[in-house]
């Protein structure tokens, strides 16, 4: 038996199940990824707003869990580059996110993203506008958490000046037209002039960001700038709120996955030969408090900041295996030195855009203590084909923040990169060997892809092997769209409150029903109460009654007769009244031995009740003195419907070993008491076949006592001769009792009340029908007049 793995919980299910037996998820093949199919990139951010609330909550919980795990992972000691698990964990971290490109809603969660609105999706104009406006400072809380190291005093004048600039600018930061790009042509000219960057203008973004942040050195955060939403965030306020509620730690820990798109530069970086690790940090001078003032990260409390972020902002007390990773920064310094940039120039001077040296100030911090050999030409090419991660741009900002930071460049040079960044460095060399083997084992554990295996390709993210983004825009035909629109209208129609009918109408309905009930109860109760016997009974036999007396007369003395109880307690009163005259006549005339068989579980009790109410088992002279076990037997319940009936007809003792009759042909007659045409039909049908195949049964009569509701549908069997006689309802029973001069039974007591009930029905239906017919015509006429 083949198994189907549940796409949701991952557990095995038998392949014949349509839904998972553990979680109920559909196991339809459409829901899983088939062999040979390429996974499609899904922009789940677009789907977020339409998710139901419960799913949002679940996703948020999963997200928080993931972020907590990421934070824990970040606080773990960094593993050296030769340790594959760490490398893989970095990849996994990138893959377990829902998409390769950072979703808008995720970027909204990250405070760092919020502080750097230049996302990859923004047009170049937006990017350049950032340069001009020089906005996007750190979150407000970052400024509020400025430590008391004395920086406030030194920066206050600058802050005031910055405030005066940022307040008006921040309002229009994200509204800049694409034409703003032209304004920054001069600003980015130094970068464009460089050969590596001129090959791909878009890859300059990281440098431009560096410049932009460098210009914002020491600028505090204003509420206005923080409050500025990015365009994609407008529709995702709920997620932003979630992010705000989730606390600083979550926001910070969410940063690594948010920078997935920027990992492309790491892909290029992976090809760079890794220099030997230098453990210079231990000999570095004590960290100045000013080194903590690193833009938005400075505002994050130490206790909530992941270790990797801490290590990125301050010197570490352990050897940094990732120190060589900053070699590319040295390269930047060398390229800048070609332009005669003064390394020791104060930062505030370099911030002036008019000086045309925007990048020198921030790069000098990285190049000051460079001890790594210069890069070769191809290395530089690969370097400038990357985008700078946000965290690094923040670091650059922090480095350029104060002159002191430039002086501690040797501390920052070996600064530790986040572990996941380090792990990504030797991507090209490791992926080929190790990840290929892991590819078959990676199963998504969360998010909408949970349970899928190998949905996200393991190709190095950001490389040319990265699968091309596939638009998830629904390719729907016009017919499908029309259907969707129709469904939408239907759903919308369901939400429209329906006008409630006028209360007087409902009240009149209830009053009419109550009036009818009162009439019936009073009239019938009165007739029954006085014990009326006024209504005559017809002495004429209808056709379907004529054969019954003959059948009764043909039954041998003391022969067994099968009585099938095929009715429910609801109609016990009618069936007892209808069957009474027949059974009473039989017992009086032929003294048969009744065998009661029931096709309803309650029938076993109804058989005894029948015998008691029609007075057969009462002692003489009130009854006929029939005794259970002597004159009649109750062999119980026969389940199985038509199969049970067939089995009983073929082999009575086989089905009912305790039956007194060994074979069905031993029954002198069969009396079927039924209130359902369906179950009654089963007996007639199966007996018909048995009579055709057993000559001994050919003369076995079948009599039917039917409820008035089943009588009409059993009538064709009487007409066809399959049933020898039928009593339908108490109207037939009353006549049968009267004609055969049987002992007066229940039916006579009911007959007058029955007649009164018929009369009331005729009158009420006639009068009410006419009234409502006229009222209906008038109402419809009035509606037509009103249009």
């Amino acid at each position, binding site marked *: 038996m083949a198994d189907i793995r549940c796409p949701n919980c991952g557990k095995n299910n038998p392949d014949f199940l349509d839904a998972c037996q553990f979680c109920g998820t559909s196991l339809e093949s459409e829901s899983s990824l088939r062999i040979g199919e390429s996974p499609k990139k899904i922009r789940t951010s677009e789907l977020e707003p339409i998710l139901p609330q419960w799913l949002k909550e679940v996703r948020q919980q999963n997200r928080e869990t993931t972020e907590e795990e990421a934070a824990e992972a970040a606080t773990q000691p960094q593993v050296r580059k030769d340790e594959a698990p760490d490398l893989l964990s970095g990849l996994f971290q990138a893959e377990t996110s829902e998409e390769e490109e950072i979703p808008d809603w995720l970027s909204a969660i990250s405070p760092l993203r919020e502080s750097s609105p230049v996302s990859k999706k923004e047009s170049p104009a937006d990017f350049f506008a950032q340069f001009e406006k020089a906005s996007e400072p750190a979150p407000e809380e970052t400024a509020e958490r400025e430590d008391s190291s004395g920086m406030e005093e030194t920066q206050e004048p600058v802050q005031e000046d910055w405030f005066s600039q940022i307040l008006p600018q921040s309002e229009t930061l994200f509204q800049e037209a694409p034409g703003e790009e032209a304004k920054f042509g001069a600003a980015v000219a130094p970068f464009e002039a460089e050969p590596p960057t001129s090959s791909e203008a878009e890859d300059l973004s990281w440098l431009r960001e560096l410049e932009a942040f460098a210009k914002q050195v020491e600028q505090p955060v204003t509420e206005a700038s923080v409050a500025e939403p990015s365009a994609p965030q407008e529709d995702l306020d709920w997620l932003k709120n979630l992010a705000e509620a989730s606390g600083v730690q979550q926001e910070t820990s969410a940063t690594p996955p948010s920078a997935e798109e920027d990992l492309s530069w790491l892909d290029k970086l992976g090809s760079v030969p890794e220099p030997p690790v230098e453990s210079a940090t231990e000999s570095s001078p004590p960290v100045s408090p000013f080194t903590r003032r690193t833009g938005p990260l400075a505002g994050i409390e130490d206790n909530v900041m992941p270790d990797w972020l801490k290590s990125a902002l301050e010197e570490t007390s352990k050897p940094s295996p990732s120190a060589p990773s900053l070699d590319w920064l040295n390269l930047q310094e060398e390229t800048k030195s070609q332009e005669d940039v003064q390394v020791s120039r104060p930062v505030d001077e370099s911030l002036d855009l008019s000086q045309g040296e925007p990048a020198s100030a921030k790069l000098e911090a990285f190049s000051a203590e460079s001890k790594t050999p210069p890069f070769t030409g191809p290395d530089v090419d690969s370097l400038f084909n990357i985008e700078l991660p946000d965290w690094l741009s923040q670091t650059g900002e922090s480095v350029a923040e104060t002159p002191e930071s430039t002086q501690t460049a040797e501390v920052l040079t070996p600064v530790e990169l986040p572990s996941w960044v380090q792990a990504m460095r030797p991507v090209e060399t490791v992926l080929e060997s190790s990840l290929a083997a892991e590819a078959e084992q990676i199963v998504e554990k969360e998010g909408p892809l949970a349970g899928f295996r190998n949905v996200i390709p393991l190709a190095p993210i950001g490389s040319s092997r990265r699968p091309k983004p596939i638009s998830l825009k629904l390719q729907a035909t016009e017919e499908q769209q029309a259907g969707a629109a129709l469904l939408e209208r239907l759903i919308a129609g369901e939400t429209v409150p329906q006008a409630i009918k006028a209360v007087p109408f409902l009240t009149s309905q209830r009053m009419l029903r109550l009036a009818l009930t009162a009439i019936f109860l009073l009239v019938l109760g009165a007739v029954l109460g006085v014990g009326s016997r006024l209504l005559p009974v017809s002495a004429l036999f209808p056709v379907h009654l004529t054969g019954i007396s003959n059948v009764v007369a043909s039954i041998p003395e003391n022969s067994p007769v099968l009585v099938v109880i095929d009715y429910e307690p609801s109609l016990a009163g009618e069936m007892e009244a209808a069957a009474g005259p027949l059974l009473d006549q039989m017992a009086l005339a032929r003294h048969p031995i009744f065998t009661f068989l029931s096709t309803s579980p309650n029938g076993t009790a109804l058989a005894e009740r029948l015998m008691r109410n029609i007075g057969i088992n009462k002692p003489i002279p009130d009854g006929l003195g029939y005794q259970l076990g002597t004159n009649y037997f109750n062999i119980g319940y026969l389940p199985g419907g*038509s199969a049970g009936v067939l089995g009983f007809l073929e082999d009575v003792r086989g089905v009912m070993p*305790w039956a007194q009759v060994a074979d069905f042909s031993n029954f002198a007659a069969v009396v079927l008491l039924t209130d359902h045409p369906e179950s009654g039909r089963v007996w007639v049908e199966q007996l018909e076949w048995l009579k055709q195949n057993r000559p001994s049964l050919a003369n076995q009569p079948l009599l039917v006592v039917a409820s*008035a*509701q089943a009588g009409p549908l059993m009538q064709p069997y009487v007409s066809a001769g399959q049933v020898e006689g039928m009593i339908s309802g108490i109207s037939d029973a009353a006549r049968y009792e009267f004609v055969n001069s049987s002992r007066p039974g229940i039916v006579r007591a009911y007959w007058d009340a*029955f007649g009164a009930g018929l009369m009331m029905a005729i009158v009420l239906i006639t009068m009410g029908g006419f009234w409502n017919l006229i009222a209906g015509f008038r109402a419809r006429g009035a509606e037509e007049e009103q249009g």
Partner: protein
Amino acid sequence: MIIEVISGLIGFFLTIMIFSYLIGDNPLFRIAVYLFIGVASGYAAAVVWHGVLMPKLFTPLGDPNQLVLLIVPLIFSFSLLTKFSPRISWMGNFAMAVLVGVGAATAVGGAMLGTLIPQARAAMDAFNIRAIGGGANALFALMEGTIMLIGTVLTLAYFHYGAKRASDGTIKRNSVLEGLAWLGRIFIAITFGVLFAGVYMAALTAMIERLSSLINFVKGLLG
């Protein structure tokens, strides 16, 4: 005697509680209905246990000769209990397959041999002159047989839903069949009118029985 009084008293109050539904849905009505369902189900379970499972399944297990034949229904019966667990409910499919297969076969055999052929033959026999005899009764019988045959055919025509797509794209029944179906509606309306009257008479008898028992109980209490 005391048991009869208590029984009558309970039946009296339960009847009143059910009749209270005519005023509207209320807790008394619900109590009566839920109590009834519980008692009826418990009684049915006891009947099935005592009347079917014990004598037909468990008691014969002591007989080695029957053990072989009963081992399969025993396993099947227990497998039906797995229907409570979605994980292993598939085990009960075999028992259900046997139950459905046997039931379908008996229904097919019964419908064919017990209804289709005999009723068709009866419709034809209505025109058997030899069987009918002669005289006015024969004429009446022929007329009756003709009307019944027409009614049968028209009713079946009404339930024939075969249709074809017209040239304009609309789906329509054959015009002849459409006319026959309309006439079939007349016979169906007549038939349902008779059935309606039958249901009413059955319900009326049930009400009479209830009222009669209430009155008899009150009369018995009053002496």
